């Protein structure tokens, strides 16, 4: 059975690219806002989360913090995708157990190989 991936981004184009990147190897689920992501994660219990930072309402980091409180998601691997790499939230990321950062424009090939390694 395919592993479940939750893709969170408010930009439709990015969601489509991410979905196409992972579609062969993962079961795709998409959320557009931080709150939607938290709700979906609760029911879904995904194997990997790919999270944007700048989201309407609840931002990506806060969403990850909430997801971490959900039973079964304490150790789920999370990739963060930031619009620009200048925001240094590495220490914060470490606290939240975020395993990787990608800066837009991300390289789909690298993203996929890292994703496969993370859920292996």
């Amino acid at each position, binding site marked *: 059975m395919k592993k479940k991936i939750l893709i969170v981004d408010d930009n439709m184009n990015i969601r489509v690219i991410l979905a196409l990147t992972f579609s*062969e190897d993962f079961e795709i689920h998409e959320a557009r806002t931080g709150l939607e992501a938290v709700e979906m994660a609760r029911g879904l219990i995904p194997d990997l989360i790919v999270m944007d930072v700048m989201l309407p309402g609840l931002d990506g980091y806060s969403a990850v913090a909430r997801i971490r409180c959900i039973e079964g998601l304490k150790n789920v691997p999370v990739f963060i995708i930031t619009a620009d790499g200048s925001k240094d939230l590495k220490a914060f990321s470490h606290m939240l157990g975020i395993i990787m950062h990608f800066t837009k424009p991300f390289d789909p090939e690298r993203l*996929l190989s890292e994703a496969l390694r993370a859920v292996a």
Partner: protein
Amino acid sequence: MHSEDRGNLNNAIISTAIAELGVREAEKNLAFIAYFNLARSLLNTTRITDLAEKCICYMNEVLGDKSFVLYIKNNDAATFSVYREMKNGSITNISGFLPDRVLTIKSGDIIWAYTTSESGVPESAVFEYFISFVLEKKLCEFKNSDYPEPEKSGSRTMHLTLSEFIGKTSLPMILGTSSGIVVFVNAHALKILGNLQPERERVCFSEILSMLAENKNGPVNYGDKIYRIKSERIDLNGVEMISVVFEDITEYKRLDDIKTTFISGISHEIRTPLTSLISGMKLLLMGRLGYLTDIQKHFIRNAVKDAGYLLELLDNLIYVGRAASEKKPTLKLRKIRLGEFFGDLENMYLPSMKEKYIEMRINLDADSIVTDEMLLRQVFSNLISNAIKYNTDCGKIEISSRLVNDTVIIEIADTGCGIAPEEKEKIFAKFSRLDNLAHSIAGAGMGLYIVKYNLQLLGGKVELESKVGEGSVFRITLPEEIYEKKDTDC
């Protein structure tokens, strides 16, 4: 001046002096006038300071404190006159060589006052006094109305009292000596200085002048206005003077801010779709969405490359915009191994070097530095990218480092087109490009601006040695280890 005129004048002064001062005081004054006539005849052969000092000394002996020498110089003539404070508080011209009421002052004239400050009167008190007498038209109380105006020699002259002249000058202006003594402040400048230190009862102008001289390079806020301070050294008969002019750049700054906000706002807007464009094209190249022919791959690769260049441009614009907002970033200091650092950069630029068959040599005598890695990376990626861009095919790039007294010197030399001496100054400015190459080589002229800005933040500097046609050497000087100043100190 004819001797007959001088006689008439002296008579006029004598009668005025006796009427105003009484006989005993008048005697003292007239003795001074006789001395002063002699001194003034030496004006063209004697240094103005020597003359003023002699007059002041004499006046102190004869008259006591609180006297001023006022000197007005233009192309036609120089007026040299002495003032004394009278018992009723007014200021009287006691030298007799200034026409009544009306001073003939043209724009460009130098107005200079020498005071008794050296004789023990506190400097600030004297200057405040001098300024107040200039501003409050006390000068007009001088009564020698028969004195003829100076001859006009072709050029148009304006007739203004000193206070009117000051009122009509739109530029706030201060004139002082190089030792920090302020000798002239106009009303506009006084207003600005009032805003500067409103909490102080007495403003010490010499303090302000040295303060202004220190930060003359940057714009300064006074009240709700922003001024650029320009100072200039003037040689006045062997005396070095400093003129300080305040240029109101409030409006310029406002427009510049709008421009910066606009550029950085629009850059962010463009960045978002551009990133999905690049990621999308890379997805195509992966072959996940179907097989691509070689020619299709070739065109998409070129599109990715160009989009990448566009993104780099935008990121530079955003960075420069952030730099202009004057918020200094906090430095993240850590030890950097230069070998690794330049190795990474070399790998990054390997593809574009291959394209032009450029060879890079790295020779590091100093390998360790404590600084902000991201800022340093921006510096050298811009310099290396330029060294490739402006190099000839089969050219060379040499990077070397050495340690000299706690300072790391890194040189990056190329065999490119070189930079002409007259271009050297301006290439570090924002949006500056080499004129002759602006059309043939892509770029927005932000690279070297970022280099200079980042090095300022890192406590370093950049120097350039270059010969047209032979190449350029950019020499970066950085402290081996920088310590951040703590704001809590003051």
